[in-house]
């Protein structure tokens, strides 16, 4: 369509362009700062959205069906998830404030903050699980925050803290479904971060992904009955914690290959197998009623070498010329 286009003329256009460039353009620092903050907010929305949508349908997917809906906790379960989420998001928001700057991931007070949080965990198993989930989600928010800031040190510290937080989750008591759903959500977030990550941060995120997968397998083993060899997935983790067995997981991992010795109190079979795509050896001693061998239980991780195609997020803001002909 042809339209009458009022033209400013070359000289006025040049003057306006100079004015915009010198007086109005954001600095690169402002742009980076704003981007980190906005994308972090987008991740928080993502986490909140996924968690809310994952809460209810999971009951049907797990085959509990009508039985589950009759249970007394069927009504408060989503609310508790929402509460946990709200606490975690609040914690995440607090991370952004200057008062918490020193206790941010990688900061001098971060370890102290984690210790205090761990010491304050309630002793009641149900409350403790909720608090642990909130703690794990807060560590996930730390990872997202560190990723947004491009701070490799903070990211490593946050990933370590996240691994520790999920390693302590009890897979045998009540509320394991909720915990499993939460860790599945974490896994999806970590996988998306991993898809966009490069260099050392990618390897740290890969470890976190592996650990989350391992925890999910541990939960599956805890709920699926005997003979599952629940510990297989953790063989693939490199340099992390074993995170296996209901209590006191100990993992000794080498570089690239992990040997994991876990003691489980659940009704699991003794599993001895090569796990994690041939990377790990897992020896579990179980006090259960069954024993069996599970040759390979580590989930195949998707290929991370080709992140999904997307526009270059690091590109600078476009230089849009003034309208005209």
């Amino acid at each position, binding site marked *: 369509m042809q339209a009458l*286009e009022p033209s400013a003329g070359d000289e006025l256009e040049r003057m306006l362009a100079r004015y915009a460039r010198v007086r109005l353009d954001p600095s690169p620092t402002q742009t980076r700062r704003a981007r980190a903050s906005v994308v972090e907010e987008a991740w928080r929305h993502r986490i909140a959205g996924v968690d809310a949508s994952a809460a209810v349908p999971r009951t049907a997917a797990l085959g509990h069906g009508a039985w589950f809906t009759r249970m007394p906790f069927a009504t408060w379960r989503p609310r508790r998830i929402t509460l946990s989420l709200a606490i975690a998001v609040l914690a995440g928001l607090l991370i952004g404030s200057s008062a918490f700057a020193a206790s941010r991931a990688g900061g001098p007070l971060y370890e102290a903050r984690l210790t205090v949080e761990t010491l304050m965990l309630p002793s009641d198993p149900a409350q403790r699980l909720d608090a642990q989930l909130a703690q794990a989600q807060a560590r996930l928010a730390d990872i997202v925050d560190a990723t947004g800031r491009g701070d490799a040190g903070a990211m490593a510290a946050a990933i370590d803290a996240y691994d520790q937080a999920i390693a302590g989750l009890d897979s045998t008591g009540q509320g394991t479904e909720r915990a499993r759903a939460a860790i599945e959500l974490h896994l999806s977030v970590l996988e998306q971060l991993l898809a966009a990550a490069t260099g050392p941060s990618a390897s740290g995120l890969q470890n976190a992904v592996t650990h989350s997968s391992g925890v999910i397998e541990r939960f599956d083993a805890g709920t699926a009955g005997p003979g599952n060899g629940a510990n297989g997935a953790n063989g693939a983790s490199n340099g992390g914690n074993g995170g296996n067995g209901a209590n006191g997981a100990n993992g000794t991992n080498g570089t690239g290959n992990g040997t994991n010795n876990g003691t489980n109190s659940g009704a699991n079979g003794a599993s001895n197998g090569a796990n994690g795509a041939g990377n790990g050896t897992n020896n579990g001693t179980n006090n259960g009623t069954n024993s069996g061998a599970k040759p390979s239980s580590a989930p195949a991780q998707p290929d991370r070498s080709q992140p999904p195609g997307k526009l270059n997020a690091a590109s600078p803001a476009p230089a849009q010329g003034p309208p005209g002909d």
Partner: protein
Amino acid sequence: MTIDDEEITGLVAAAQDGDPEAFGSLFDHYHGPVYRYVAARVHRPSDAEDLTQLIFVKALEALPRYEARGVPFGGWLFRLARNVVIDHIRTRREHVTLDLATERPAPEGGPDELAALRQELDSVATALLRLTPEQREAIELRFFAGLSAKEAAAAMDRQEGTVRGLQFRGIAALRRELGIEPSLEERPARVSGEDR
């Protein structure tokens, strides 16, 4: 980064599905224009930075409710930006002289060139202030934010022709203020082949 309308539509859809990186790409595309528009209206860089960030957070929250329906995403985003700026001006009622505005590093040159540049920028700022608020907004959206007439119309909640008229009169007023004579072919308007 330059992306076309089709890519923007795809990014908006992905962002609505909860893809944070898609929203990050939209941010990359629109941050500069939004910041320039806001900075032109509030003058103080710290406010411009805070408000721009607020605009994108509000856009993130409102994105699930966005439906194209003839309103381009840019127009929708700038309408949101306009409302945020109006709210800010209403509540703050600040009067900051343009001298307080922080300047980006100017092109290299000697003291004389820099003085001349500063004088020119001050003249432009003064000329802009003498426009009517609507003319100034049309100029800001079209020249500083780089919006199309359609997007600017959506942002201002006006007809496209009205925005073109405001732009035309704004340009004429700026020329008078700055002492720029239009060339013969630019008088009074010219036909453009594209509908920007």
